[in-house]
């Protein structure tokens, strides 16, 4: 039996060998090494690590989609709410904020069609990426901090990032009022902010 014949057998028998094949293995160093290497590769493959983790955005996207489809809801509170909490539960806040944002976005979009910004106005908006947050956002972050203090910084960072995205998109629309891509970007930016608000509201619930 030649090495070529032996290798052809490897593809068919998956490790079960006849007397002749076993004899070839015993006498041929090259095929013996080949078998050893292939077995080692196969064995090591079983122990490849599963340490890699998806980024948090994967769960966030799953969470949002399942809520939109009405497949999930928050479980009932494990512990009793703080005194007075039950009298005021700002569950109206998210839809109200989201509606206000979308409406203000539409109004702004209408205004930008007739009043394009000057160069100085665009430059001014781009120079302050870390501007202060609106009062509603501060209030929302305070709510998050009461229930999930460890997440406050993360949501604050997300809100700042999405606010910067909105400022950027707004300036694009001001510069190019007829650009449909810029308009779509702006609407996407508002929707993203509404999503972050919704997630933060979820975290703020007991």
């Amino acid at each position, binding site marked *: 039996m030649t090495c070529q014949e032996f290798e052809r057998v*490897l*593809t068919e028998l998956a490790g079960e060998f006849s007397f002749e094949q076993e004899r070839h293995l015993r006498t041929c160093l090259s095929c013996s090494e080949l078998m050893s*290497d292939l077995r080692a*590769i196969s064995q090591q493959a079983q122990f490849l690590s599963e340490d890699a983790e*998806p980024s948090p955005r*994967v769960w966030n996207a*799953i969470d949002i989609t399942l809520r939109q489809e009405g497949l999930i809801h928050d479980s009932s509170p*494990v512990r009793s709410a703080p005194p007075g909490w039950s009298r005021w539960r700002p569950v109206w806040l998210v839809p109200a904020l989201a509606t206000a944002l979308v409406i203000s976005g539409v109004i702004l979009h209408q205004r930008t069609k007739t009043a394009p910004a000057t160069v100085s106005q665009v430059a001014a908006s781009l120079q302050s990426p870390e501007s202060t947050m609106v009062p509603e956002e501060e209030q929302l972050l305070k709510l998050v901090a009461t229930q999930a203090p460890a997440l406050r910084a993360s949501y604050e960072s997300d809100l700042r990032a999405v606010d910067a995205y909105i400022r950027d998109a707004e300036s694009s629309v001001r510069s190019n009022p007829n650009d449909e891509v810029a308009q779509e970007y702006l609407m996407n930016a508002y929707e993203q902010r509404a999503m972050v608000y919704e997630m933060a509201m979820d975290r703020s619930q007991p």
Partner: protein
Amino acid sequence: MSDAKKPPNERLPEAEAIERAKQGDASAFEHLYNLHKRRVYSLCLRMTANTAAAEDLTQEAFLQLFRKIGTFRGESAFSTWLHRMAVNVVLMQLRKKGLAVVPIEETMGGEEESPKKEPGADDIRLAGSIDRLQLQNAIGELPPGYRTIFLLHDVEGYEHNEIAEMVGCSIGNSKSQLHKARMKLRELLKTSRAEKATRP
């Protein structure tokens, strides 16, 4: 960390989490996700060799799972059910992109079908010693068809009859592709070792 110190969700048995998830409990969903996300993501990452694609496929696999969780009856292990779903999601995506999942049925035999040998690599011996990180890198360099079969069989533990059904090929083709994948990996590992040996 002792059980008492873990957050409440982490102490939740999987079976109970599944029942709660069937009722729509958001925290139960999240618990199941955290239990299985690494394994599913690792599978997707190895099969696509692309982190963005792997995250999208992980998301899709879990969405399909959670949409169908009401139908889970417990005949197989939950992890098996989820894993099979993830594999199908990845294979469907690979087919959509036109990436060859498995080459067309081919006749066996013929030297021209064996992986080409790099000059000098034959002098390097693996001697049965395989570095896991190098193996991981080498898997990423395999052609998609070889990679799929190798991952499903040697990494994920599926049998050839299962692979043939999932991928849509014959058992013989599955065995042939597996052998070629291992031969290609051997060649890649030898080349990698040869390059390392010649580096100053």
